[in-house]
């Protein structure tokens, strides 16, 4: 008889590009390797607007964090946080309130190592190396338990990451597990790629990302709405990132639908 074995240890794989380093490159960062940049160039061919999309998504993250701060949230769980770049959640939150606490979660080795390096001197922010699709691992990690108070509202951040979660992994259940762990009055900030806005480009992106270690699964607005089960979706609803409570004055006049990503914020009932 023959059976599968998966105990071969996984090392660091720099040959295969990662979404975290691709994102960093699109945002103008230097934390990436030739293979990541090569993928990024192909990504840009598939979706010439990729840099704007990354920028808008990053801006949405910032606005949603500030929105939660204004609503009294002082602790954040940033799932799929990626490589620290400009405007990290702890910088945004702690600039608003130095006592704000942030737990980052990423399973990619370099993102983890880099975050750990940057956060080494910050007692109120930490990183857990875990797979966000295994809520138990994340929620029971000593870092999480040590820093977050689950009886108080928590800002759950899933910005530009859920399009990496395959439908087979039961996304509904994953979010439900996090939702059940956090107190009522907690918030979920969520954004992910969709075919609704730019279908042709999206299809090309999906194709490009198949060669990375992070293939992509775009979702429609109804599918995204379903993921907010148990949350009241706040105004303005599930919208292109640029349209979610934009900063007046910085609107760049571009067609917001070219964001390619839907975003929304919900409040746990």
């Amino acid at each position, binding site marked *: 008889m023959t*059976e599968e074995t998966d105990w071969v*240890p996984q090392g660091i794989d720099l040959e295969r590009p990662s979404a975290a380093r691709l994102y960093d490159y699109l945002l103008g960062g230097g934390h990436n390797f030739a293979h990541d940049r090569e993928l990024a160039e192909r990504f840009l061919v598939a979706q010439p607007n990729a*840099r704007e999309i990354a*920028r808008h998504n990053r801006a949405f993250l910032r606005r949603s964090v500030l929105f939660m701060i204004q609503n009294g949230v002082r602790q954040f769980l940033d799932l799929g946080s990626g490589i620290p770049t400009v405007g990290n959640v702890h910088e945004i939150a702690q600039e608003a309130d130095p006592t704000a606490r942030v737990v980052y979660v990423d399973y990619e*080795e370099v993102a983890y*190592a880099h975050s750990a390096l940057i956060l080494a001197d910050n007692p109120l922010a930490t990183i857990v190396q875990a797979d966000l699709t295994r809520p138990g691992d994340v929620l029971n990690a000593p870092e999480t338990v040590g820093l977050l108070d689950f009886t108080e509202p928590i800002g759950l951040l899933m910005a530009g990451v859920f399009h990496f979660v395959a439908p087979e992994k039961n996304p509904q259940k994953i979010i439900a597990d996090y939702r059940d762990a956090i107190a009522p009055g907690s918030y979920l900030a969520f954004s992910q790629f969709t075919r609704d806005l730019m279908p042709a480009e999206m299809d090309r992106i999906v194709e490009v990302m198949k060669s990375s270690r992070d293939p992509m699964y775009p979702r429609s607005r109804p599918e995204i709405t379903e993921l907010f089960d148990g949350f009241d979706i706040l105004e303005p609803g599930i919208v292109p990132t640029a349209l979610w409570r934009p900063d007046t*004055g910085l609107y760049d006049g571009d067609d917001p639908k070219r964001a390619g990503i839907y975003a929304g914020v919900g409040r746990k009932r």
Partner: protein
Amino acid sequence: MQPLEPSGDRQSLVRGWLRVVAATAYVPASAADVESLLSGLLAELTAAVAADPVDTARAARVGERMVTGALTGEATLAGSLRVLGRGLLDGGHDPVAVVSALGAVATGYAGALRIRTLDQQENMKVALLTAKQRAERDRRHTETRFREVFTASSIGIAITELDGRFVEVNPALAAILGCPVDELANRSLAEFIVPDDDPNLPGDRKLLIRPGGDTAWVYLTTSLLRGDDGQPVYRVAMVQDLSELQLLGSRLSHQNLHDALTGLANRLHFESRLEAVHGQAPPGSVLTLLCLDLDAFSLVNTTHGHLAGDRLLRTVAHRLATAVAGHDALVARVDGDEFAVLIVHGRTAPPVAEVVELVTGELSEPDYDGHLGLAATASVGVARAHAADTSSAELFRAADAALRHSRETGKHQWTEFDSRADHRARKIGRGATALPAAWENGELTVAYRPVVRLSDNAPVRVRALVHKPGSESASDLAEMTGLSVALGPWLINQSTENLPTWQSLFTPDTPVQRVLLSPLQSADADLSATVNRAIATAQVPPGLLEIALDTPAVLAGRGDARDNLRTLADIGVAAALHEFTGGPRQLAVAERFEVRAVILADLFDGWRPDWLPADTAPVRATRELVAALTGMGASVGVLGVRDHTEARWWADLGVQTAEGPAFGDPTDPDGILSRVRSAATTTS
């Protein structure tokens, strides 16, 4: 990009720049903050252009601050320079100065961006190094764990190429294959496996053939090892030696069925073999079963130590096995120092005595270990039966019963099973074992039997005794189980309650109640305390009570028997001896302890003494005995007097008191009262 609005107005120039930034870069700050940053930068740049000569260093710092302010989108610099150039020119600045200043901005920007990128790469390198070290450490741990499992496993493990050639083999597999690890290079597992064409074999069970040619059954399990890309790279084969499992299994079963010390079958095994032999023996064949118990084995153990004891047991086992070699026989060690030998004969069997001699003949030869020569003698019980006549369990039980009987007879004896003796023994055994339960259930009572003065056959006291309805001799049975130690105090306590009754009934200056104590009760260290308490509770003079101790127990100095005899006299109780058979030693004891009464044992072994010729030696001796006892001041009594003829005989001999069927069986106090009163009426 936005078309450039021609404007010399500073405020509108800042707004235009802001639009470029917003469209090209992600700046983690509010619009107002960004606008004030840009406004400051523009002021710096304007000052640099206006200076003469152009302050390029100041302009370069504007470029640097664009980088630190995150105005670093792909198109941010180009867009910014375009807006700023147009604005400055429109503002009337010298075109050469403007070009020169913007060039300096670009230079400053490029330099800062380079440094930022280098910093990020440096960070990246450190992060990468850390991550690699972590991964390396994890991998090492995994590998160490794997190594440990790999080398220590008793299951054979091989990592093979996909075509089956060995890449790595663990020591267990080399042992299973019967081939050193280094000789397995470039060979494959398939070379060792006999191709199975038997479709009934389970798929993972294989026959393995070793280089020497011998074979072994194994369980074979294989799995695929995949590389990082998910493609199969190696196979892992796990091989479990079934013959070793089977070996272990049979060793366990051997341990279950055999005695580890002697290697003989144990009781469990013997019983099942006996049953099998019994069931399979040809009709009419005779079975002889011997149970042997080593004499004084515990003495060997305590004197010479357990090693010597063990050696003796092994020697006996060996000699028994040798003795019956060549016969259809089975030898077993059925208990610590008990052995059993079963011999199956044909239709005719040699006499039992011959079989016993055959089996035990060699046992008593001393076995020398250094200076110490130990010889074993054994008590033997023998049972013989036709296979058809009895069950195997019955045969074993019979031999065991005969052994017990043999042990009672003495050492180095053999006894053949006697069914009548066995029946008696079993009945007594049943009664004895039932007694404790009867006592627990309150079925035992105290009964009284009259004791008469032989001169006129008038009742003078009662004997209290333990009575179980329907059973003859509760106290004898109690003695067999040790229950009598508990029964003694109970009997004394219960009976003394009636002392006032007997006191008023009989002559109060002599004992009015007698209790005969068994050997165990006589030796009981708590006896005098018990008696003291009972008398105090009943509030009667101690002299009303006659307590007779067992003569052999006193003679042997068993337990506290002698102290008890002395202390009872000190208390004021009438101390007596019973089971008295005579002889100088017993008489000496009676004299020394100045006993008040002596109750004779059954001196004539169940025979009626009054039927014996008066000049026979036993009769004469008894007469002498009674005279001797009377001479030292002891009152002599007898038990079990059958009728008045016998009573007169004893009276003629000089005996003072008697009890027995002639004077009434045990009864309750009311029975005694009515009997004594009617006797008084008759005599008066």
